[in-house]
């Protein structure tokens, strides 16, 4: 019976695979091809092989003397901002997420479900709406500036919107549930007798936290970090709304090549680069997880 099963059964997944290849994976290959073509006159491409787009990712040509090539500092600024803001977002989410997940995991079972539900709600509500909520909070005539001006602490509004800080705040806000949920999953399985044993052996709270709890929930930490880091790296909506044109991230730089910039091969090359970074982060994650789980299972 088993043998009969795997003979034809996988064919049931064929319709789904056809749609996925046509509308998700296949177009990615086209992007890779387009990154090696020449830009067309009004957007699009002309079918001439060229490595110019890839060079433009990292280098820029002098406007008057195209032979003079230098590092593309504008692009590097965007790359660095993307990575730096994503790392900070991950850190902020970890610092806030760890105590929150711990708090939920140590509630009595009945109320635990409710607390967990309170995390799930923002997790599934529209990212656009949550970003809009942050925009309302920090704009010049927004809640924070109004309160500060009302109390007399400041005389004119502080420019919060369209700064790196705004993007960092927004990303931490929208991605926080992605850190809390895997951390909670790890803590939920935690054997509290081991924590108790630590205290019995005269460990202080800090020592128990450092040597018992954190090592045990490490897989949840790693999963949460990767779940926050990857969408941060690829963020488009949050930096577009909160960062504006001045504080672009890689996603916005890519989007620009298909709008006003109109350099499709460059946009395609930047997309491939972004994809390589994401896949790199995923491979790093899988390696760490395998190393973590290796000794325990074998």
């Amino acid at each position, binding site marked *: 019976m088993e043998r009969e099963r795997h003979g034809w059964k996988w064919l049931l997944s064929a319709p789904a695979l056809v749609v996925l290849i046509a509308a998700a994976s296949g177009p990615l290959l086209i992007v890779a091809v387009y990154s090696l073509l020449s830009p067309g006159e009004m957007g699009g491409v002309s079918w001439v092989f060229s490595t110019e787009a890839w060079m433009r990712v990292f280098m820029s040509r002098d406007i008057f003397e195209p032979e003079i090539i230098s590092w593309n500092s504008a692009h590097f600024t965007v790359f660095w901002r993307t990575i730096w803001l994503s790392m900070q977002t991950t850190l902020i989410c970890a610092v806030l997420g760890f105590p929150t997940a711990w708090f939920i995991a140590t509630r009595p079972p009945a109320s635990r479900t409710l607390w967990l539900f309170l995390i799930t709600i923002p997790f599934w509500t529209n990212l656009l709406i949550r970003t809009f909520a942050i925009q*309302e909070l920090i704009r010049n005539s927004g809640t924070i500036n109004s309160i500060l001006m009302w109390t007399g602490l400041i005389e004119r509004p502080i420019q919060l919107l369209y700064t790196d800080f705004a993007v960092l705040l927004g990303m931490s806000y929208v991605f926080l549930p992605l850190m809390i949920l895997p951390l909670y999953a790890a803590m939920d399985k935690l054997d509290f007798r081991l924590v108790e044993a630590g205290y019995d052996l005269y460990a202080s709270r800090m020592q128990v936290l450092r040597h018992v709890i954190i090592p045990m929930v490490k897989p949840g930490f790693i999963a949460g970090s990767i779940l926050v880091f990857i969408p941060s790296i690829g963020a488009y909506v949050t930096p577009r709304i909160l960062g504006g044109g001045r504080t672009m991230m890689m996603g916005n730089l890519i989007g620009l090549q298909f709008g006003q910039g109109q350099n499709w091969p460059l946009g395609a090359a930047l997309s491939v680069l972004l994809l390589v970074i994401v896949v790199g982060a995923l491979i790093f994650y899988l390696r760490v997880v395998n190393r973590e789980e290796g000794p325990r299972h074998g």
Partner: protein
Amino acid sequence: MANAFSVKRLPGFGAIAILTFVMLYLPIVILVVYSFNAGASQSNWEGFSLRWYQTALSNSQVQEVSIRSLWLAVTASGIATVLATLAALGTTRVSRFPGQTMIYALINQPLMVPEIVTGIALLIFVAFLKVNTGYSGMGYMVAAHTAFCIPFAYLPIQARLQTMDSTLETAAADLYASPVQAFRYVTLPLLVPGIIAGFMLGFVISLDTVVITEFVKSAGQETLPTYMLGQLRRVVTPEMNAIATLFLALSVVIVTAFFLITRKRG
């Protein structure tokens, strides 16, 4: 009890947790509160009013994009759920076969690739197809949303299938049920909660998708999220808050229902 030493207590953690919950909900609460503001300001409270809901609901453009969004979400999630159910039946509870990892990777691929990359990939592909076929209808949007919904629909269906008792189907077969009958009267009814959950997840995901839609849409194919994204660049009135609140309410209802359905499973 409150003063007794508890191994589960870590000083300061409770305070940070409560603060986090407040921070998670405060911006949303403010957004909802100002949707009921009588004035046009987002920071000066001028009394309670439903005028922005009236404005939003009678705005013909809002009506149009909302209907399109709902239609798209139902269609894409419906197709994705059927495809994901078949895929789950084809990949779960079977002995390992060559290419299995490949299938898993394909199904989960939309989860890993940044939306902006999928978005521009589809923009390029759709532009190519439009030139060569002349077709520029909603088909592209349906296909893009369906592909994006498949992994989300697949997850709960596959999870349900994995925990299902296979002896019931064996019993059906022992009682001379044909494979089709066994599927129709045993497997499918048991699978229904997973299928409903999968459809709901797909529905919410399609409704939320903004980046892919923004790059795939042709003229006149604006959805509610892309309409909102466009509006946010201008100075917004509480009409936006009213739209966002209605949208939020719909999401909360679906998520609550999803939560209740998947919890009963155990």
